[in-house]
C-alpha cells in the first residue's frame, strides 16, 4: 500500500473532563472510502472534527497525538487552507440563508475566486457532482433554505466539493434524508472516490458494507478493529466487533 493520505497517530482528545478519544491510530488510504462505524458516543464524529481542526472551536478541547495530512501535521496548516483541503458534510442539512448559487460559491469566493465565469463553472461542476444540478439549474437564485431536506443535503455536499478538497468527510450524512436520496448520494460518493479520499461516519452498517472499501469499528473512544470492509464484516477478529455487527449491542 502506498503512503496513507491521512494518518492519525496516537490521537487522544479530551473535552473538559471527558475523555473522548484515547490513543487512536489509523491510516486512511488514498482514493478510497473509509467507513467508521460504532455505537453512539464512540467518538466517531469527534474524530472527524480533529481532521479539519473544527474541534478547536470548543474551548474545552485538548488534543494530543498527531493528524498527518499528506506528510504534514495538520496543526502546521492554516485552518482556512486545511478546511478547504479537508471538507466536511454535517449530519443535518444546512442550507445557508442565501441563494443556491451563493451557497456553492461561498467557499470559492472566500478563497479569492472573483471571476463570474469561473464561479459559474465551479457551481455547475459541484451541483452536477452532487446530483442536484438537474433539479435546481433553473432556479439558482432561489434561497438555499427553501429546498427540501434531501436537496439541502446534496447542496451541503456540493458546497463541500466547491473547494475541490482532497479529503471529504461525511458525518452521518443520511440521518435526515430519505432512502432514495441516500442511494443517490452513495452513488455519487463511489464516483467521487476516483478523485478524492472519503471518510464516512455512519450508523448504518449496511451503508458501510455497500460502499466502504475499508471499515473501522470504534468503541468508547478507541479503534477496536480496522480492516478491508469484506474482511471485517465476514471475519471480524475482535469479539466486540462481532457482537456489534451481529446486533448483540449498539
Amino acid at each position, binding site marked *: 500500500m502506498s503512503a496513507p493520505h491521512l494518518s492519525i497517530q496516537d490521537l487522544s482528545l479530551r473535552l473538559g473532563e471527558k475523555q473522548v478519544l484515547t490513543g487512536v491510530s489509523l491510516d486512511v488510504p488514498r482514493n478510497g472510502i473509509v467507513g467508521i462505524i460504532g455505537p453512539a458516543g464512540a467518538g466517531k464524529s469527534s474524530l472527524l472534527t480533529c481532521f*479539519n481542526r*473544527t474541534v478547536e*472551536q470548543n*474551548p474545552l478541547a485538548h488534543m494530543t497525538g498527531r493528524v498527518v495530512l499528506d506528510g504534514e501535521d495538520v496543526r502546521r496548516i492554516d*485552518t*482556512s*487552507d*486545511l*478546511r*478547504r483541503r479537508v*471538507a*466536511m458534510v*454535517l449530519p*443535518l442539512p*444546512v442550507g*445557508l*440563508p*442565501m441563494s443556491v448559487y451563493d451557497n456553492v460559491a*461561498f*467557499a470559492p469566493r*472566500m*478563497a479569492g475566486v472573483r471571476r463570474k465565469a469561473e464561479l459559474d463553472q465551479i457551481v455547475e461542476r459541484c451541483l452536477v457532482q452532487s446530483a442536484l444540478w438537474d433539479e435546481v439549474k433553473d432556479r439558482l437564485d432561489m434561497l438555499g433554505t427553501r429546498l427540501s431536506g434531501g436537496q439541502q443535503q446534496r447542496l*451541503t455536499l456540493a*458546497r*463541500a466539493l*466547491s*473547494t475541490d478538497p482532497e479529503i471529504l468527510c461525511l458525518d452521518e450524512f443520511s440521518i435526515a434524508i430519505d432512502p432514495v436520496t441516500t442511494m443517490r448520494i452513495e452513488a455519487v460518493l463511489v464516483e467521487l472516490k476516483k478523485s478524492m479520499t472519503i471518510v464516512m461516519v455512519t450508523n448504518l452498517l449496511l451503508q458501510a458494507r455497500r460502499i466502504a472499501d475499508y471499515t473501522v469499528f470504534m468503541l468508547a473512544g478507541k479503534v477496536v478493529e480496522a480492516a478491508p470492509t469484506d474482511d471485517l464484516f465476514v471475519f471480524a477478529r475482535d469479539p466486540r466487533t462481532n457482537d456489534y455487527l451481529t446486533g448483540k449491542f449498539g
Partner: protein
Amino acid sequence: MAEIARRRPPSYTRHVEFVIEGLIRLCGVSAIIFILAIFVFIGKEGIGFLLRNVLPMLVSIDWSPTAEPPVYGILALVVGTLWCVGLSLCFSVPVGLASAVYLSEFASDRARESLKVVVELLAAIPSVVWGFIGVMILNPLLQKLGAQVGLNGLNGAIVLALMTLPLLVSLGEDALRAVPESYRQAAIAMGATRWEMVWRVLMPAAQRGLLVAVLLGVGRCIGETMAVLMATGHAVRIPTSIYDPVRTLTATIAAELGEAVRGGEHYQSLFALGILLFAVTFVVNFIADRTLRGRRAS
C-alpha cells in the same frame, strides 16, 4: 384514576376562575385603552390647530409662537429632529452593532456576562443625567476639538447615540444569537475565518433582527426629550454644520408647554407638534413590528 376524573370540582373554583380571568383580561385591555386615551387627548387639543395651519406650518422655518403675529413654522424643528437622529445613528449603529457582534461571537462567557450588566446599567441612566453629561463633560470636550462656544447638534447627537446604544446592543445580540449554530459550523467548516463567518453568514441571516434593533433605536431617538433639550443648544435654525445648535420637536414641547396659556393658540400648536411626533414614532414602530413579524414568518 376514574374516581378522580368523575369527581366535580367545588363550585367556588368556577367563580375564582371567572374573577381571575376577568382581571387578566382587564390588564390586557387597559394598555390599549391608555394608548387610545392618549391619542384622543392629544388629538382633541391639537388637531383643530393642525388642520387650520397645516400649510403655514410646513413652509416656514421660523418658530416664534410668542411674536406678534405668532409664526408657527415647524420646518426647522423637523429638520433639527431628523438632524439629531441621523447624526446620532451615524455613531450608534456602527458602534452598537459591532458591540453586539463582539458580545455574541467573540467575547468569552465571563466577559459577555459582565459587559451585559454594564450595558444594561447604561440603559438605566435617567435622560436628565445624560443631558447633564452632555452639557458638563461632552460639550467642553467638543470645544477643545474645535467647536465654537455654545451647545450644538453634534453634542446632542452623541448623547442620543449613547442613550440608544444599550437598546441596539442587546437587541442586536439577541438577533445574532438567534441564528442557528449550524450556520456557524457550516461556515467554519468551509474555511471561513470568524470574521468572514460573521460578515457573510451571520449578518445576512440576522438582517431583519438587526434592522428591528435599529428602527427601535430610531424611535427612541425621535422621542427623547430631556437630554436633547439640555444638550443641543435649542436654537431654531436649519443647521448647516455639525457644530450648529439645533432644536427638536420634543424639546420645544417640553420647554414651552409650561409657559403657554392653557387652551390658547400656542398651547394648541404644541399639541399639534405632539400629534406629529406621535404619528412619526407610530410609523417607525409599526415598520419595526412588521419587520419582526416577517422575521418570525420566514
